[in-house]
C-alpha cells in the first residue's frame, strides 16, 4: 500500500478543504477503499477521515413523512431501524442481502453510493483497465465476461456497479445531498451516476472535495410499502455480489396496478431503472404475463459484450419474479435469507 497522510477534520468545511487537494480521498467505513488500497488499485496520498464529523449519522423522519439518512449511517443500523424498515422494506431487504454482518456494521451510506466495481480486471493491476488507468484499454472485453454489464456499457468499459442498496434507492426517487467547495446542492440519484462512454474513470457527477452528507427518500415511496421487494441472484447462497438483482414495488387499486417501480442491479455501470416497464404496468392486473412483458421492456435495449448473454434472460426472469413477489405482498418479517430467490417467503427453508 502506498503511504499516505492521515487527517481527521473536525468540521465539514475542514473536510472539504482537506479533500479538495489532488490525491485526497475520504475515509468512512473503509470496507471498499482500504481493500482497494491494499491491492494498489487506488493510491490516495491523503486520507481524510470523516468518521468523527458531527451530524452525519442520523436517520430522520421528515415532516412530510419522507426520511433523511445521514452519510455515516451504517448499513446494519439503517436496515434494522424499525420505522425505516416498515416504510421502506425493499431498501432494508436490499441492505441485508449485501456483504456480511461484519461489513454491514462498518459500511456507510455514502461509501455504498461510491463503491467501485468488482470487475476482476479492475482489481487485477496486471490487466488493462480504462477505469484504473485511463487510455490503457479494457481487458474485460474479450476476456471473462460472465459478470459484465448488459446495459449502458461502451467499448471502453463493461463493468457493473455492485451496490444492492442503490437499486431500491433509485426506484424510490432518492435525492443525494452534497456539500462542496461552493456550498450545498442536491442531485437526484437518477442523475448522480454517469455511464462509461469514453471516460469510464469518471463514475458520477462529484467534483474534487465534494462530500455526500445525506440521502433523502420521499414520502411517496412509503405508499409502496405493502408491495415492495428486492430479489438478488448470486453465485453462492449468501455473501456475494449480484449477478442480477431487482427492486420491484407496486400500488394496487381494485385489483389493478395503479403505480409501479422497477430498478435492476448488476446490469450496468449504475443502478438501472426502467420507467418504460413501470408505465406498461399501470392499469394492468398483477399477472405473470404482464410482469414478463414489463421485464422484457426493461431489457429491450440489452446487449451482451461477450459470453454473458445469459444475463439478459436472467434479468428478465429476476425482474418478473421480483414484481410477482411484490404483488404477493411484503412479508411482515423478512425471510431468513433476504432477497434470496430460493426461499423468498418467511419460513421457507433454503437448505
Amino acid at each position, binding site marked *: 500500500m502506498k*503511504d499516505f497522510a492521515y487527517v*481527521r477534520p473536525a468540521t465539514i468545511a475542514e473536510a472539504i478543504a482537506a479533500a479538495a487537494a489532488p490525491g485526497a480521498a475520504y475515509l468512512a467505513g473503509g*470496507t471498499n477503499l482500504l*481493500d482497494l488500497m491494499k491491492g494498489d488499485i487506488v493510491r490516495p496520498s491523503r486520507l481524510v477521515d470523516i468518521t468523527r464529523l458531527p451530524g452525519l449519522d442520523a436517520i430522520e423522519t421528515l415532516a412530510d413523512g419522507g426520511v433523511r439518512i445521514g452519510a455515516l449511517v451504517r448499513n446494519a443500523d439503517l436496515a*434494522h431501524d424499525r420505522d425505516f424498515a416498515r416504510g421502506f422494506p425493499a431498501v432494508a431487504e436490499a441492505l441485508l442481502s449485501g456483504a456480511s454482518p461484519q*461489513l454491514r*456494521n462498518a459500511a456507510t451510506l455514502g461509501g455504498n453510493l461510491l463503491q467501485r466495481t468488482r470487475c476482476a480486471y479492475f482489481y487485477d493491476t496486471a490487466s488493462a483497465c480504462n477505469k484504473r488507468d485511463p487510455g490503457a484499454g479494457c481487458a474485460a472485453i474479450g476476456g471473462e465476461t460472465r459478470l459484465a454489464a448488459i446495459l449502458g456499457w461502451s467499448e471502453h468499459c463493461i463493468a457493473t456497479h455492485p451496490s444492492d442498496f442503490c437499486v431500491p434507492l433509485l426506484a424510490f426517487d432518492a435525492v443525494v445531498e452534497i456539500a462542496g467547495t461552493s456550498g450545498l446542492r442536491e442531485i437526484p440519484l437518477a442523475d448522480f451516476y454517469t455511464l462509461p462512454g469514453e471516460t469510464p474513470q469518471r463514475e458520477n457527477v462529484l467534483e474534487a472535495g465534494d462530500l455526500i452528507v445525506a440521502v433523502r427518500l420521499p414520502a411517496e415511496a412509503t405508499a409502496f410499502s405493502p408491495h415492495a421487494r428486492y430479489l438478488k441472484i448470486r453465485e453462492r447462497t449468501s455473501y456475494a455480489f449480484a449477478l442480477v438483482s431487482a427492486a420491484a414495488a407496486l400500488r394496487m387499486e381494485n385489483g389493478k396496478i395503479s403505480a409501479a417501480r422497477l430498478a435492476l442491479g448488476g446490469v450496468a455501470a449504475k443502478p438501472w431503472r426502467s420507467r418504460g416497464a413501470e408505465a406498461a404496468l399501470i392499469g394492468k392486473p398483477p399477472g405473470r404475463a404482464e410482469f414478463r412483458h414489463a421485464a422484457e421492456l426493461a431489457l429491450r435495449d440489452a446487449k451482451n459484450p461477450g459470453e454473458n448473454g445469459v444475463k439478459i434472460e436472467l434479468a428478465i426472469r429476476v425482474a418478473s419474479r421480483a414484481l410477482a413477489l411484490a404483488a404477493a405482498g411484503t412479508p411482515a418479517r423478512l425471510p431468513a435469507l433476504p432477497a434470496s430467490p430460493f426461499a423468498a417467503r418467511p419460513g421457507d427453508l*433454503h437448505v
Partner: protein
Amino acid sequence: MSLPLSLTVNGVVRDVALDDPRVMLLDLLRERLDLTGTKKGCDRGQCGACTVLLDGRRINSCLALAASCAGAEILTIEGLAQGGVLHPVQAAFIAHDGFQCGFCTPGQIMSAVGLFLEGQTGDDPERVREGMSGNLCRCGAYDGITAAVLEALRQAAAPGQAAA
C-alpha cells in the same frame, strides 16, 4: 511521523505511537499489542477470521484503519473468558465440536458474540447460518458451528441448563 493513538482493548487502555498510518487494527493487535488470537486469513474482508468487536459490534479488523479507531473499545478473543471461566459461546463451541483446525475459530466465536448482541436471529437455524455467513471455515465445521451458536443462544434465553 508518529500518530498518538489511545484505545481500550479488552478493558485495558492502550496508548500506542503509530509510526505508520497504514497499520490496520488487525496488525495493531497482532504485531504491536501481542494479541495474536485474532487471525489474519484473507486480509481483504472476505473470510471473517479477523472478527473483533468494536464498540460492541462485530467488524473485520483487517479493514479497519487503526488510526481511525482512536477512543474505541475493542474486544478480542483474549478478552472473552472472565476469571478463567469460558464465555458461553466458547464453551458451546467445545461442546459441539465447532471447529477442526481452529484457525477460523476466534473469528467465528467473536462473530457469534456479535450476533448475540445484535439479537436478530432468535433460535432459527436458517437465520443463524445467514448471520454467520461472514465467517468462512475451510474445514467445513459449519454443522458444529451452527449447533454451538444455537446452543449458546438457548443458554442465554434459559440460563442454568447444561450444554448437550
